[in-house]
């Protein structure tokens, strides 16, 4: 950003603050004004929540808003919309789609969810079965999605469907935005091993989607999905946290409270602390390189580290508790959680089992490192050129 750009950006922020004092304006109203001035996603085009600046300039805007007592909570409240949906619309949406959806997404007036995974399509996402068939200027959709965060609170869903079963799997997909209140959409809580239902199953029974809600061309759904997934993996494991914080801090607390002097347990704890610190430094180094425009392999490593260490640390924490670790205070309750607090070690142990599955399994991440970073050849693909309908499934 040149000095002129920087001054102009600060001028726009100043204008926002003058007309909508951050600490006293209603958040939704403030976010609307922020969008109108192009300060929502500064790298978007003007008129669509941006100013045509670079992605990193957004950090400056967010920092100024927080310093002025304003809220940037919308980024969490509508994580999937603001973090991923906006990127998809910016890259693949028409102007009228952007105009319709971006502003209420940013103000959190309309919450978004993302419907990709299916019971028979996990790591092999491109093999998904949910069928969309054309009918006049509408599409009729049938099938099931799973692991959908926030579906029960969402107004809109990002949806990948199969529109051409005769084409090889990557080429027969089409991407839509679906009204979650449409007839035939059935959202059911999916209770996970903690008893919480953070996720949903979503069933589609003859759901009609107008063609104007299609994102990009028919058959380009895979390309659009990749935009979404890249944003997701950047979001997980990319932050540089303070040293010794998070799950390892919980383990250290349990160790200190236990009063144990066991040298084997102590060594294991320090070992985990060291591995967390090595991962943290690797992430700091990756961030420094990325912001200098030299993205290295370190970035892809973050998600794997996060999954592996979370699982090991939380399992070890239970070990430190001894017999206490066999208890589950409060018991299991099948509920939709109101917060994602996993400070109880037993619950953290259970919740982290998914860390090496969600957002791309560790095996898939290792394939990415092996193939894209190290340049190793892919597995022979028996399904790559076959029509999707002829690919064995089960």
């Amino acid at each position, binding site marked *: 950003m040149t000095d002129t750009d920087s001054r102009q950006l600060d001028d726009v922020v100043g204008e926002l603050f003058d007309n909508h004092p951050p600490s006293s304006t209603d958040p939704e109203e403030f976010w609307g004004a922020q969008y109108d001035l192009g300060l929502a996603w500064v790298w978007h085009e003007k008129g669509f929540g941006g100013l045509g600046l670079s992605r990193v300039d957004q950090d400056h805007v967010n920092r100024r808003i927080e310093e002025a007592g304003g809220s940037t909570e919308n980024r969490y409240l509508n994580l999937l919309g603001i973090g991923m949906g906006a990127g998809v619309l910016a890259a693949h949406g028409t102007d009228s789609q952007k105009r319709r959806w971006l502003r209420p997404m940013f103000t959190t007036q309309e919450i978004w969810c993302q419907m990709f995974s299916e019971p028979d399509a996990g790591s092999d996402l491109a093999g998904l079965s949910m069928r969309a068939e054309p009918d006049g200027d509408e599409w009729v959709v049938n099938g099931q999605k799973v692991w959908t965060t926030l579906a029960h609170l969402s107004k809109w869903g990002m949806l990948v469907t199969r529109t051409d079963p005769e084409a090889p799997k990557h080429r027969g997909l089409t991407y839509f935005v679906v009204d979650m209140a449409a007839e035939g959409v059935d959202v059911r809580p999916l209770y996970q091993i903690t008893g919480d239902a953070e996720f949903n199953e979503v069933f589609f029974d003859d759901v009609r989607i107008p063609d104007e809600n299609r994102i990009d061309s028919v058959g380009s759904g895979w390309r659009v999905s990749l935009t979404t997934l890249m944003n997701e993996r950047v979001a997980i494991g990319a932050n540089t946290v303070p040293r010794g914080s998070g799950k390892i801090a919980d383990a250290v607390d349990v160790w200190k409270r236990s009063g144990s002097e066991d040298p084997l347990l102590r060594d294991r704890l320090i070992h985990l602390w060291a591995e967390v610190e*090595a991962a943290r430094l690797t992430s700091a180094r990756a961030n420094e390189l990325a912001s200098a425009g030299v993205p290295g392999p370190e970035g892809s490593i973050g998600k794997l580290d996060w999954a592996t260490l979370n699982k090991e640390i939380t399992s070890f924490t239970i070990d430190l508790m001894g017999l206490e670790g066999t208890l589950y205070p409060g018991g299991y309750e099948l509920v939709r959680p109101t917060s994602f607090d996993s400070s109880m070690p037993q619950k953290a142990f259970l919740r982290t089992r998914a860390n090496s599955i969600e957002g791309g399994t560790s095996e898939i991440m290792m394939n990415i490192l092996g193939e894209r970073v190290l340049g190793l050849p892919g597995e022979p693909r028996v399904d790559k050129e076959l029509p999707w309908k002829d690919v064995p499934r089960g």
Partner: protein
Amino acid sequence: MGEGSTVSVSYAATEDMELIRTTARQFLEERIRLETVRDIMMSDEGFDTGLWREIADMGWTGLAIGEEHGGAGYGLSQLGVLLEEMGRLVTPGPFFASAVLATAAIEMAGDDSQKAALLPQLAAGESIATLAVFEEPRGWDPSVLATTASADGAGWIIDGAKRFVLAGDQADVIVVAAGFEGGIGMFVVPGDASGLEVVETPVLDPTRRQADVSLNGVRVDESALLGGGDSTLPLRKTLGIGTACLAAEQVGGSQMCLEMSVEYAKTRYQFGRPIGSFQAIKHRCAEMLIKTEHARSTAYHAVRVVDDDDEFSIAAPLAGSICSDAYNWIAGETIQVHGGIAFTWEHDAHLYLKRAKASSLLFGDPRYQRQLLGQAIDL
């Protein structure tokens, strides 16, 4: 401790670091190559005086010695880059003993006149030095030493037996750690001192020679005691610097093993396809990459924070533990990826395996490093 604290340093390579890397990579690949490594390691001397001269002429031996003493005046970050490059080719010779360990000991513990007397020759590569700390019974805690120095008029008489002394038989000067009435001292002993016996020992990693050094009534001047007094803390710092520098070298070796394995996995065919297309091999290579990057992060961090005692007391053992574990694992898996060929003497993989294993024991195995780390972070 470092709870919540985050010492922020830049990991990007500076211009001088890039230059050191390019020069070193080019020189070592042309001049050393792995065939040369084998010749040197199997020779009686264990190092090549011609190569030593060339290294000295390029200024490597004085890289981290101050300009006032004839060195280049760079810091540990720059020395780390050089060691990383040397580690890629398991460069044999007394460089680590002299230009890293003994140099650090003199820089940390010596007074001005001792530095002026010793460092210029080390910087120029005219003299080779080493550090003798460890003894029987084996252990890495430098505060427990059986070797003693007793006052004798204006000088000292040293008695004891040092073991595992790197480049001991190549050294013109040996810095000996010994207990004395004032604590632990570091004494500069000439390699030809009377009463000093140096016996080369066969070693697991023949690219890095060791010797047993016995001292029987060895007389040295008053000025031989570095800093003129207790060196408990400088000795610990020196061993920390050794650990951090070794970590940088381990990163270079790990990276080379990774590159060898990936290259082989792309070109070796079994069952009609490159073995790197099998996930069993691919994931192993990905794991090598991850461990190499973790090692790199901790090593780069350690060499960058050497002047901050508190942070370094965390960073050095962290790097020591992570880099040793990483290099040991990676060197071992390199043999597995290559299969039978890597079990032969002709193949290079064993050079790395031996370097990795021996290095991980030099200044404390990963468990000992974790003990030091635990003390530093109050666990």
